[in-house]
């Protein structure tokens, strides 16, 4: 044991003498672990909250019976089914306004609730009497309580004046969900003797066929191991994971170069150790031990950093998920022990992967140095050829994925293959560029510069590959985000055509408001609006009613439309579908869709497709009058107003005073636009943040590579110094060389980045979100990025160059005196 410790001490002494190298290694490992585990923490946080949501009494994890048209059905069906042997339990669900916020209210029946539903809240286990018997309980997640600023035991008052049972904390519940006894829910939601769905328990008793009991009023919905939210948000998390992985690999690039350099520098030490009687086996074991120890230390720091990163990104992630999918994620990060273990494991595995080449070399290390000719050139050429071949294969694979793939995963595969192929091809491309430069050089010093850059290539190529990847992804993501934000704002301008939006508390109130508005001269038009909910293929779909008015005809943006689309919309047998829905159902202009409606299916011919960014649900837009004919019960409380410019504030304050409307149900276009834009900017905040991290890490990779190279470059530089080039000149040449190599890399990164952007916009976005954006190039943004990259390269080159320019001549002389 003490032998191992002494050997370890000898190995570690290297780091003490080269703290910068150690720092590089640790920075690489820490950043790799931190970003990876940070992203994992975010994913885990989100998934566990989906679980909570799904577990909330009959998410998709339990088979259930639902009304044919998705509507509530008489409670009588519940008792009929029970008496026919069906182990069903009733659930009432609706939304309840409390203090201006909308909550999901679930009414459950704990006595019949299948016990298996319950990794869910522990209702029915011991305390259901308190839940059922007056005053009963309102179960809510701790987050919901703090959001409401109410203590446990408080009784909430709904906006409609009804009071809820006292609050009771139930940590397994998802935020934003309130659970009460079914009877209470029916009262609160004004659904007497009606039921939203029936959960089907696993009991296996003889039972009558469903049709015999319920006719065609109910349909069985099979259990789904994956919750709706999980499916919806999969793409988002895949997105996050992809970026986490990218950062992880860029981090490993650093680790790899640091370990590789350390290994080269420690070769004499390893040989001496062997000569002094350390067996190869023991030495390798201790090398491994050293690596694992370092990886563990870095892993722990990385995990802490990852936790901080996740914590700081969580609000944005939560906002994105809420905005995009309506998924509620608690704002407080809670992590399972598995996360810590997995983080440490990934750190160690990453370190092992990055060190694999060095460790293998060490394992095969002969004690005696064989006299081999310095054939770096041939070796490098051979490597370049092999690498180029691999790159070609990978790029062909990317093409294949693009051509044949039809999923988000294949989209990411295209991206990954594209980036990997480009990175692998980079050294060859650089070599080509440099040798062209060398050939065109007239001046001897310039020619030497080119040649020397070529020789440096093998040492720098990993860092340059990292830079290429980071830049390309930056260009890609930057272009996508910019494209999105521009498209979104234009779209919003068209969508928010009315000047003022009103949502009255009920139909009667809406009529009063409308009558009053009719007498106001500044009101140019009153545009009624309404929405109904239905399902197509089991997925919720919104039906939006559009009044037949010039405001819509002139402004409402359509991506594609048939001739005279607005005119054809009038009779009510045609509709526009949102882009997401069109993609999901593979619909085109002229196709027909069947939508369940109260009076039987409503068949619509599609005459237009419109963008509906950020809506998790599919949407169909129809004529408003037709909508109210087919869905007579929808509330007609929404009004849009066209108002003479300049009169808006006055009208709004008049409305506020007269009808007691406030910010929640009276809003002007500008505010609404600002709100929407703010929400959507957060959608890509995470992506942008991860992106910047990646670029930062790539900069560090470049810096560390140059630093490590600078030490071994003295033998190359000393002869130049000896023939009369000053240290300052040498330093400038070094900086220039680095900059030119970085510039070439950056220039190569630009087209690659645009390709990445195209992939993101045309493949990934379409699969992930259901919309396709127009592809634009933003030259200024590209220029800016080139600037940033060059700045990073300059910074990275400057430190070793400064070292060189201040180097004692004695050190340069030493090169000759003490040829290594």
């Amino acid at each position, binding site marked *: 044991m003490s032998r191992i410790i002494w050997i370890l001490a000898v190995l570690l002494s290297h780091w003490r003498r080269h703290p910068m190298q150690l720092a590089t290694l640790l920075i690489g490992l820490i950043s790799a672990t931190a970003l990876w585990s940070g992203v994992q923490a975010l994913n885990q946080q989100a998934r566990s909250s989906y679980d909570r949501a799904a577990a909330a009494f009959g998410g998709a994890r339990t088979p259930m019976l639902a009304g044919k048209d998705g509507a509530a059905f008489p*409670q009588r069906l519940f*008792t009929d089914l*029970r*008496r*026919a042997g069906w182990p069903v339990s009733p659930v009432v669900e609706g939304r309840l306004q409390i203090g201006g916020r909308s909550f999901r209210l679930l009414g459950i029946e*704990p006595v*019949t609730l299948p016990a298996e539903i319950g990794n869910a809240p522990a209702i029915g286990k*011991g305390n259901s*009497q308190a839940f*059922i018997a007056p005053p009963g309980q309102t179960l809510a997640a701790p987050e919901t309580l703090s959001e409401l600023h109410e203590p446990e035991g408080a009784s909430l008052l709904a906006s409609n004046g009804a009071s809820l049972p006292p609050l009771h904390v139930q940590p397994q519940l998802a935020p934003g969900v309130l659970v009460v006894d079914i009877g209470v829910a029916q009262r609160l939601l004004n659904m007497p003797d009606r039921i939203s769905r029936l959960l089907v328990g696993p009991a296996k008793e003889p039972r009558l066929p469903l049709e015999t009991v319920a006719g065609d009023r109910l349909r069985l919905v099979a259990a789904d191991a994956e919750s709706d939210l999980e499916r919806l948000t999969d793409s988002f998390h895949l997105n996050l994971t992809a970026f986490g992985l990218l950062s992880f690999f860029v981090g490993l690039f650093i680790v790899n170069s640091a370990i590789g350099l350390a290994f080269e520098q420690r070769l004499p030490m390893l040989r001496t150790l062997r000569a002094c009687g350390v067996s190869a086996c023991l030495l390798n074991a201790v090398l491994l031990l050293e690596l694992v120890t370092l990886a563990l230390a870095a892993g722990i720091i990385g995990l802490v950093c990852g936790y901080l990163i996740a914590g700081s990104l969580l609000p944005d992630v939560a906002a994105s998920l809420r905005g995009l999918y309506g998924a509620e994620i608690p704002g407080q990060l809670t992590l399972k022990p598995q996360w810590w273990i997995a983080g440490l494991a990934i750190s160690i595995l990453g370190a092992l992967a990055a060190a694999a080449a060095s460790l293998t070399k060490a394992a095969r290390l002969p004690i005696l140095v064989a006299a081999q000719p310095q054939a770096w050139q041939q070796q490098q050429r051979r490597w370049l050829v092999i690498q180029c071949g691999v790159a070609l294969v990978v790029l062909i694979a990317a093409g294949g994925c693009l051509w044949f793939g039809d999923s988000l995963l294949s989209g990411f595969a295209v991206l990954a293959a594209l980036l990997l192929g480009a990175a692998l091809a980079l050294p060859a491309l650089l070599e080509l560029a440099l040798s062209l430069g060398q050939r065109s050089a007239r001046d001897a010093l310039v020619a030497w510069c080119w040649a020397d850059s070529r020789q440096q290539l093998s040492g720098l190529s990993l860092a340059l590959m990292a830079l290429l990847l980071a830049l390309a992804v930056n260009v890609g993501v930057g272009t996508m985000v910019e494209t999105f934000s521009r498209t979104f704002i234009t779209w919003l301008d068209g969508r928010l055509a009315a000047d003022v939006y009103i949502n009255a508390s009920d139909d009667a109130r809406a009529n009063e408001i409308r009558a009053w508005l009719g007498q106001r001269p500044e009101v140019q038009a009153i545009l009624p609006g309404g929405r109904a909910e239905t399902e197509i293929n089991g997925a919720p779909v919104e039906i939006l009613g559009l009044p037949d008015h010039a405001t819509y005809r002139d402004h409402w943006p359509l991506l594609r439309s048939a001739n005279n689309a607005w005119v054809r919309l009038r009779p009510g047998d045609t509709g526009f579908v949102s882009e997401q829905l069109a993609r999901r159902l593979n619909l085109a202009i002229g196709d027909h869709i069947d939508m369940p409606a109260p009076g039987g299916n409503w068949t619509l011919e599609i005459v237009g497709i419109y963008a509906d960014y950020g809506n998790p649900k599919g949407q169909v837009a129809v004529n408003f009058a037709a909508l109210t004919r087919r869905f007579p019960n929808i509330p007609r409380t929404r009004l849009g107003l066209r108002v003479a410019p300049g009169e808006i504030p006055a009208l709004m304050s008049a409305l506020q005073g007269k009808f007691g409307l406030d910010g929640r149900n009276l809003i002007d276009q500008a505010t609404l636009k600002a709100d929407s834009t703010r929400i959507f900017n957060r959608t890509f905040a995470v992506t942008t943040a991860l992106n910047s991290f990646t670029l930062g890490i790539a900069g560090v990779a470049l810096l560390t590579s140059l630093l490590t190279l600078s030490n071994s470059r003295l033998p190359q530089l000393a002869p130049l110094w000896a023939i009369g080039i000053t240290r300052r000149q040498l330093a400038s040449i070094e900086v220039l060389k680095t900059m030119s190599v970085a510039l070439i890399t950056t220039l190569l990164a630009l087209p690659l980045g645009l390709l990445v952007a195209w992939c993101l916009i045309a493949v990934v976005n379409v699969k992930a979100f259901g919309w396709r954006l127009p592809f634009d190039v933003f030259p200024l943004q590209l220029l800016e990025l080139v600037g940033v990259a060059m700045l990073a390269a300059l910074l990275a080159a400057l430190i070793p160059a400064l070292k060189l320019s201040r180097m004692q001549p004695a050190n340069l002389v030493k090169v000759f005196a003490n040829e290594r």
Partner: protein
Amino acid sequence: MNDRRLISRRVFTGGAALLGLRPRHSLAQGFAGLGEKADGFAAVVPGKIFSFPEDLGSHPDYRIEWWYITANLVDSSGAACGVQWTLFRQASKPGPEQQGWASQQIWMGHAAVTRMDLHRFSEKFARGGIGQAGVNAKPFEAWIDSWEMRGLNGLNDRTVAPLELTASGADFSYALRLGADRPLVLQGDGGYSKKSEREQASYYFSQPFFTATGRITIDGKPVEVSGQAWLDREWSSQPLASDQTGWDWFSLHLNTNEKLMLFRLRQNDGTDYASGNWISPAGTSEPIAPAQIKMTPTAFTATEARRLPTAWRIEIPTRGLAIETTALNARSWMGTSFPYWEGPIRFAGSHNGMGYLEMTGY
């Protein structure tokens, strides 16, 4: 605290206990409910005039109530078997019955079939007020989910016959038709059944003269059965004394066509409160004084960490009765939310015959 404490006869008494699905835990709760005064609920007092069919129906003013059928049957191959069908009602709060989900009534059903080689059981819970479970007096119908005890056409209010009885679990089901030619029998003193030397008591009547025919299906294999059955109807608001820990209950069909109902309430201090009724073939019911009854366990069966007396010697010297009982299946354990032992027995000695034994609080 000893959680294997008495619930009532027929298991179901404790106020809030029913809703707790963890038996042990709720048992203690149930017992706590039991010790309470019958405040607000109707009290059981002597001298009640029973009226039918009204008293076949439920009595929501009282805290607890049950409809209880046990049947000793023989299948077509001559093998003995038993069937149990029970519906319990309990009110969590006194006062007028609330409508809909607000109803304070909770219902529980137990069903079992027992053979020498197996014992299958199932249980059901339901809230009152919505029709998932309940009892109608006329036309007579008691049900919980798909289980039913239903009066057939021409039901006689005095005999409560003919009846149809159905229940099913995951691995068994049965359907029996019950007939009777003699009227209902009042237990205790004219239907007032004392449960202790103090005021604990219940209203209690039986139909011990049912003949039964029908079909039992176990693991998908149906078999025709026939035999005799016994109905117990009992309701109360506070049937047990707080120091009573459990009981042993017999319903016996003597070969002489006489019937015997016996129970023994075990008390904390080791003494018992025993009682019973001797029912002549004509249906005349005479109470048996506690002092005349001697019930002694003779053999024990260990099941799931419990030790149960599954064989008994019963002596009633004034009636010249001295019999030894044995269980058809000593493992007739009802592993329901409130666990207890209930199964068919046979006896021999001064009298021969068969019956049912229920033991709680072990």
